[in-house]
């Protein structure tokens, strides 16, 4: 079998991101991962949120859905339940997914639909020009926090592990090869998979730069981390000296789709809505 060319997912639009933006690495890794997995564009649905990450919807050719700020996950869940035969991917940012959409994040982890969630995590709001984000460091000075961010950052990895996610990974946009592997594993995982990606914003974040990340990230593989061990996954997630990347935790568990007998045989979209007999229901209303 020959893999579809990487550019099968290329749209006619070249990205409008700032030159050097971390998003380029994620964009490349995503297309490469899909191509290497032999997934065709028409068998792929990618749901995007709003933000610089959401603008990627214009730069990828697949069945796309560019929805509302923070609402990628419920749309993706609806897609996955309606057509479990497709590969469903949700893409958001740290403001989009961990700010506006935080409730959906936790609840989608609980539900465990078979979708992959890639978060472009640059610790800042890009598209609205540089305000503080839910993953920004305490004291971070931005136009919305000129005297320093009074909030502490959330840790999406710990949060996902605590919420019971079956696949929790972190990548780095500066290592697209490594990230490609993570996205492939995430797509192949049965159930909800999180890939939080450190993605330096070259315009609005002068703290968490490529140079800063290169000095901090460390691959979990080199730490001999066992991704089936939730306790050590938790410990690695707390590591602030070094920032581990790779698969923190992976454990397959029943998916949301498994919970619906209706989906046992074939995808919902392949079942005809016609010719239903409501007579038995009427009998019970007499």
């Amino acid at each position: 079998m020959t893999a579809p060319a990487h550019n099968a997912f290329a749209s006619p639009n070249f990205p409008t991101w700032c030159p050097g933006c971390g998003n380029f690495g994620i964009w490349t890794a995503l297309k490469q991962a899909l191509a290497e997995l032999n997934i065709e564009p028409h068998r792929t649905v990618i749901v995007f949120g709003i933000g610089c990450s959401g603008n990627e919807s214009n730069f990828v050719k697949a069945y796309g859905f560019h929805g509302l700020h923070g609402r990628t996950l419920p749309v993706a869940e609806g897609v996955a339940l309606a057509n479990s035969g497709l590969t469903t991917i949700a893409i958001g940012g740290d403001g989009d997914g961990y700010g506006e959409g935080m409730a959906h994040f936790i609840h989608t982890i609980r539900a465990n639909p078979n979708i992959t969630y890639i978060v472009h995590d640059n610790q800042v709001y890009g598209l609205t020009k540089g305000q503080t984000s839910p993953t920004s460091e305490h004291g971070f000075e931005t136009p919305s926090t000129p005297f320093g961010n009074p909030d502490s950052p959330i840790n999406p990895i710990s949060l996902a592990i605590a919420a019971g996610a079956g696949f929790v990974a972190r990548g780095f946009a500066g290592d697209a090869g490594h990230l490609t592997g993570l996205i492939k594993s995430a797509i192949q995982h049965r159930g909800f998979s999180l890939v939080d990606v450190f993605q330096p914003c070259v315009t609005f974040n002068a703290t968490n730069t490529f140079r800063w990340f290169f000095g901090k990230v460390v691959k979990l593989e080199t730490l001999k981390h066992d991704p089936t061990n939730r306790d050590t996954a938790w410990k690695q997630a707390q590591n602030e000296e070094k920032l581990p990347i790779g698969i923190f935790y992976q454990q397959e568990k029943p998916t949301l789709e498994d919970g619906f007998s209706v989906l046992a045989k074939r995808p919902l979209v392949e079942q005809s809505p016609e010719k239903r007999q409501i007579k038995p229901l009427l009998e019970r209303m007499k």
Partner: protein
Amino acid sequence: MTAQLNDITRAPRPRSGSDRVQGITWKIGGEAGFGIMSTGEMFARACMRAGLNVFTYPEYPSLIRGGHNTVQVTASTQPVHAHRAQVNILVALNRESIGLHLPELGPRASIIYDATDRTFADFKPSSVQRRDLQIIGLPLEKLAKDAGGQKLMCNTVALGASCALLEIPPDHLAEVVRIMFHEKTEIVIALNVKILMSGYNAISAVQKKRCPWDVKPAKTIVEQVLLTGNEALALGAIQAGCQFYSAYPMTPATSILHYLAQHGPDYGIVVRHAEDEIGAINQAIGAAYAGVRAMTATSGGGFSLMTEAVGMAAMTEVGIVVIDAQRGGPSTGLPTWTEQGDLRQVLHASQGDFPRVVLAPSSHRECFTMIQEAFNLAEQYQTPVIVLTDKYLAEGQRNVSVGELKLLPINRGKIWTATGGKTAAAYLRYQADVADGIVPRSLPGTPNGLFLANSDEHDDYGYSNEDAPNRLAQMERRARKVATLCKKSIPPRYVGPAKAPLTVVTWGSSASAVEAALDILDREHKLQANAIIITMIAPFPTAAVTTKLKSTKRTVIVEASQSGQLAGWIRQQTGLTFDHAINRYDGRPFDPIDLANELKSYLLTS
């Protein structure tokens, strides 16, 4: 079983045959958590099975226990469009019920109370300042226990006694028990029938005679079902091929979720209790985008949360059905009471201009057909369809003959199918130059049908595009869908004689009381009036309504909102105003008798 008669000495003489009425209103009151609702439903079913028309109206506070609950059933040989406020038989499971509902009792009403309940310990029927009432004290608890039941089954005893007063044949009661307890064992069913009959037999021939209400059952009984507006919607959604339903509980929409969660899986429906209303509507949109028929339902507050996604559905052109079962607003408002105050909210929900359909069924029967219409319109026009009901319609039960439940064919609209091969014509999901504005939708998974469903303004493929000419082309194409839709707009429902000195305009559940009031005006006051019931709110059937309104003499609008939301909308759409407005916003539905009196006094004084 001997009836324990407490006091019938003050009961009135029975009426002579000529002044017997055709319908009665029965009411049961008691503490929440004591099976008031199910007793009301069983009484209504028994009446329906005996060949009567029924309308059931429950009232309850937003509490689980401790509050006062009531169910009121109006039963008649004539069509019952709405319940009547005036009560003819009151079942008081506690003393509070007598105090609260005494003012509602009509002349010569009967009261059945629980003589063994502690709240009635020092109750003396003679203390009731009404000489025309028949007050029947029955030892409900004792009867229940003697028949092998427990205190909680007092309501069942009272139900049996009520049916005896009306001389409803006991066979119907046994059948009702079977239907209501279909999941229970034969032993449980037999026990309930026995307890019912203990109440039935506790009523003496004298007591029956002194209950002057004659509701002679029909000789030929048409096949009927008793259902709430919510059940009619859920049943209609099943018939319409709904495949995905996601919702978050909110009164008075919740029972749609319960019904579909229970029965949906048998019909291939995925029913999802979402994390919140925002999740619910976004899931429904995702499912509809992927190609299945999807719906969500909520009340006004939940709809507020869904607002942003309503616009997204219109922009991405994903057809979904959203039910808003209204309750009293603003904010948390009156959670368990009725109002029609969300009309403007749904008409204007979400930023920007976009096509939307707003339907408002005005009866249980219409709930069943209009929800099927809603699914067809959503997929044909690829835009959100909002169905407005309210608590009175959503939770009130009415009988509908099975033959009146109209089945509509499923129309899934234009769907793109790949023509095969790599050389297939380039598919453009949002091709701007389409005459009727509707481009075939491609379902994800279809080869050669890729597109981007984009909440940003977009080009023919779906890619973001902010150029002015593209913006105009796409805005105008979406607007053309409205023009296409207007050609198929649903005309109002007309009731009454073609020409009349008075025309009432109304919508939704208020139509129930209006129809009943027109009957009363005609029958009891010999006054002619007709009604225009608006069922499609948007796009508004402007031509039909304008023509009709221009041919009227005097017009009155009846609606359950303080500001007259429909009156304003009609004025905006037709330029016409009303001579008089009757608005109610205390959370209570219109009462047909009060409404008839108001219409009459307007007609005679203006």
